[in-house]
C-alpha cells in the first residue's frame, strides 16, 4: 500500500468528518417560535429494536399513518406535521442525549416520550428543564406525577393503578368467591409495581386471600415449565399475571399445553396486545384487559365510524388489527391536535409558544374514537378501562372480551396529590357496589 493512497483516503475521511461536524455545529432552527413554523416537528421516542419493539413498531406505523392523514387534510393550524423517531432501546444516556438533540438542535415543537417507564422517568425532568411540552404517550408508572410536579408533561392515557385496579374489581365483582391466588410477573419494575398495586388493593377490598405462589421469572424467559409445574401443584383459584408481548405468548402457550387454564382463572391485564398472535391458543373464559377502553369490539364507542375507519385503514397498511400502543399513539396525536386548536383559538389565530401550548394542555378534554379523555390538573389523563372475559366470535380470528365492564376513569384512578399505594389502602369493599354491571354479549 503506497503512502499516497493512504494519505488520500485519510484526507477524504478528514473532509467527511469536517463536513459532518459542520452540519452539527450549526443547528437548523432556534428555540423561539412565535411565528408560524414551516412545519410542526414532533419528536417520538419508541422502541424500534429489542423485545418491546412489539409495541414500538406498531405505534410508529400508527404515527406515520395518522400524520399522513393530518397532512392530507391541511396539517395542524395549516402547518404540516413531521415525526422524528428515536429508539429507546440503547438506554438512558443515549435517550436523554437524543431528547436534548431533538429539542435543542432539531427544534421540535412537541415531544412524545416513551414506552418504558424508566425512559419516561428520565425524560420528564428534561421537559421541566427545557420547557418543552412532552406527551407521555404510553408508559404506565404511577411514580411520574405522584413523586413530583411536571408543568410541561402530560399523560394522554391511563396508568398502572387504574390498569391493575380495574381487572381486580372485575374479578371481585364477577367471581367473588376465590380464596387463593398466585402471581407470575416479569422480574422488573412493572412486574413488581403491578403486583404491589394488586396486592395492596386486594388486601383492602377482600382481606384474607392466601397468596400461594409469588413467581418472578426473568424478562424474556423462554421456558416457564418450572413455574407452570409449581402453579399446577399450588392449585390457586386465580393466577394474576401482567406479562406482556412475547413473554405473555410464551407463558400462555406453555400453560395452555399443560391445562393450567382449566384449573385456575387467569387475570391478564395486558393481554390484548398478544391476543392476535395467540389466536385460538388463548383459552376462553379468562379475564383480559387492554390498558384502556380501546377494544376492537367496544360495546358502545363514542364514534363508531371513526373507530372502524382507524381500524380498517391500519389493517389495510399493516395487515393486522391495531393493538393498544397504536390507540395510545392515536390518543397522543388527538390530544396534540386538540391542544393546538385550543391554543391557536386562545391566541386569536396566532401560533402558540411553548408556555401557551402547555397551558392549553392543562385541563384539556379531547375525543378518542371510543370516548373522551380529560387531562387532570396534575397532567394525568383520565381514560376509562374496559375489562372482560376472553371469548371467540365469528368476527375476529382471535379472542375478544365479552361481558365487558366499563370502569369510569375517576373511579379507579388515584386522586390528585395522593400516592397510589396509600390511596389503595383506604379502599373499602363497598366500592364494589359502585362498579357498573357487565354489558351482556
Amino acid at each position, binding site marked *: 500500500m503506497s503512502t499516497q493512497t493512504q494519505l488520500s483516503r485519510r484526507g477524504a475521511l478528514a473532509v467527511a468528518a469536517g463536513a459532518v461536524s459542520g452540519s*452539527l455545529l450549526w*443547528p437548523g432552527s432556534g428555540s423561539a417560535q412565535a411565528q408560524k413554523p414551516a412545519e410542526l416537528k414532533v419528536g417520538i421516542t419508541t422502541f424500534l429494536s429489542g423485545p418491546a419493539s412489539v409495541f414500538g413498531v406498531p405505534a410508529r406505523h400508527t404515527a406515520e399513518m395518522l400524520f399522513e392523514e393530518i397532512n392530507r387534510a391541511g396539517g395542524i393550524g395549516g402547518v404540516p406535521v413531521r415525526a422524528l423517531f428515536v429508539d429507546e432501546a440503547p*438506554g*438512558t444516556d443515549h435517550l436523554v442525549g437524543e431528547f436534548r438533540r431533538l*429539542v435543542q438542535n432539531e427544534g421540535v415543537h412537541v415531544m412524545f416520550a416513551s414506552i418504558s417507564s*424508566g425512559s419516561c422517568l*428520565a425524560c420528564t*425532568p428534561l421537559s421541566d428543564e427545557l420547557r418543552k411540552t412532552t406527551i407521555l404517550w404510553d408508559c404506565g408508572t404511577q411514580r411520574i406525577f405522584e413523586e413530583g410536579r411536571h408543568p410541561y408533561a402530560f399523560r394522554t392515557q391511563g396508568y398502572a393503578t387504574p390498569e391493575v385496579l380495574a381487572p381486580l374489581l372485575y374479578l371481585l365483582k364477577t367471581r367473588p368467591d376465590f380464596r387463593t391466588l398466585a402471581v407470575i410477573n416479569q422480574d422488573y419494575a412493572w412486574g413488581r409495581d403491578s403486583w404491589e398495586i394488586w396486592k395492596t388493593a386486594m388486601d383492602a377490598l377482600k382481606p384474607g386471600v392466601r397468596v400461594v405462589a409469588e413467581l418472578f421469572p426473568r424478562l424474556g424467559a423462554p421456558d416457564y415449565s418450572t413455574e407452570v409445574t409449581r402453579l399446577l401443584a399450588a392449585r390457586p383459584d386465580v393466577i394474576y399475571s401482567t406479562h406482556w408481548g412475547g413473554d405473555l405468548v410464551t407463558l400462555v402457550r406453555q400453560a395452555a399445553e399443560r391445562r393450567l387454564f382449566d384449573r385456575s382463572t387467569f387475570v391478564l391485564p395486558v393481554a390484548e396486545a398478544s391476543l392476535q398472535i395467540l389466536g385460538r391458543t388463548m383459552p376462553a373464559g379468562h379475564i383480559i384487559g387492554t390498558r384502556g377502553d380501546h377494544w376492537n369490539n367496544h360495546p358502545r364507542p363514542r364514534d363508531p365510524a371513526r373507530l372502524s375507519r382507524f381500524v380498517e385503514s391500519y389493517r389495510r397498511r399493516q395487515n393486522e388489527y391495531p393493538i393498544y400502543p397504536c390507540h395510545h399513539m392515536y390518543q397522543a396525536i388527538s390530544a396534540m391536535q386538540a391542544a393546538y386548536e385550543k391554543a391557536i383559538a386562545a391566541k386569536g389565530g396566532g401560533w402558540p409558544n411553548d408556555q401557551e401550548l402547555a397551558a392549553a394542555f392543562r385541563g384539556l378534554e379531547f375525543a378518542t374514537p371510543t370516548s373522551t379523555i380529560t387531562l387532570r390538573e396534575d397532567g394525568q389523563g383520565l381514560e376509562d378501562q374496559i375489562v372482560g372475559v376472553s371469548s371467540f366470535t365469528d368476527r375476529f380470528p382471535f379472542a375478544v372480551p365479552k361481558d365487558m365492564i366499563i370502569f369510569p376513569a375517576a373511579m379507579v384512578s388515584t386522586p390528585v396529590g395522593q400516592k397510589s399505594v396509600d390511596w389503595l389502602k383506604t379502599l373499602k369493599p363497598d366500592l364494589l357496589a359502585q362498579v357498573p354491571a357487565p354489558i351482556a354479549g
Partner: protein
Amino acid sequence: MRRGAEISLALLGVAGVLAAAWAAPWLRFVLTIALAKGIAVLGILLLLRAGQVSFGHALYLSSGAYVVAFLAPSLPEALLLLPLAALIAGLIGLVAGLFLARYRDIFFGMLNLAISMVFYSLLEKLYELTRGTDGIRVEPPRVAGLALTLEAYVWAMLLVALVLAVGFGMLVRAYLASPMGQALAGIKTRETRLEFMGVSARRVLLAAYVLSALMGGVAGAIVGMTTRHVTPLLAYWTTSGELVFIAILGGAGGALGPFLGAVTYELVRVYAAAAFAEAWQAILGVVLLLVILFAPGGLWGMLLGLLGRRPGRAP
C-alpha cells in the same frame, strides 16, 4: 518533542470540545457523557497494556453511578460525590482484583464479566432498594456549594468532566511511563521474566486494576450526575462491551486515544440514530469493522500516521 505534540493535541481537543459545546447546546450533554466514558476507557487501556481485556468494567461505571444515586439526596455536593464514588469503586476493585489478578486472558475477561452481571442482577432484584429497572432519579447536586441553574449545571458538569479527563489522562500517561507501567507491558510480553526480576506480576496487575476501577467509578459518577437518572442497564454487559469497543476504536497507543474513541463513538451513534433510527447498531458495527480492518492502531494510530509518525503500538 513527542510530549510537546501530545500536549498541543490535548489542548486542541479541549478547545474543540469547548467550542463545540458553546456552538451547539445539545452537544454539551453528549460530550460530557463521551468524556466520562473516555475516563472509564482509560482504565481499560491500562489493563490492555498488560494484554488483559476486561469484559466487566460496567461494574465500576455503574457502582459509581449508584453511589451518586444513593448518596445525592443526603449529600448533594458534586465535588464530594465524585471522590466518594471513586473511593467505593476503587474498594470494590480492590476486593475483586485480589483474586482476579491471578487470572489471565480469557479467564480474566470472563470472570470480570461474571462479577459485573452478578451486580446487574442485584440491582434488578433488590427492587425495594434500587427501584429495579425503572431506576433512581438524581436531583442535580450543588457544585462547589453553589446551587446552579440547570443550564449552568450542564456547563459545570462538562467542565468537571473535562478537568477530570485531562487530569486522569496525565496521570495514566505518567503511570505508563513509570516502572509500574513498564511492568504492565512486561506482563503482556513475558510474565516469567518479571517474576525473575523480583517484580510480582500480581501486584503490578492489581495496582493497575484498582486504578482502572477507580476511574470507572469517577466516570460512572459523572454519567449519573449528567443523565440524572440511573438504571441497571449501566451494569449490563453491553455497557462493558461498549467500553471495550471504544478502547479498540480509539486505539490503545496513548492516553488521548480513549477520548478520541469515546467522542467519535458518541457522535457516530447520535448521527446514525438521527439518520437511520432503526439501523444505528449496524452503522456502529461497520465503523468498528472498518477500524479493525484498516486502522489496527485505532483512531489514535490513524492520527499519528496523519501527523507523519509511526502508528502507536497496537492493542
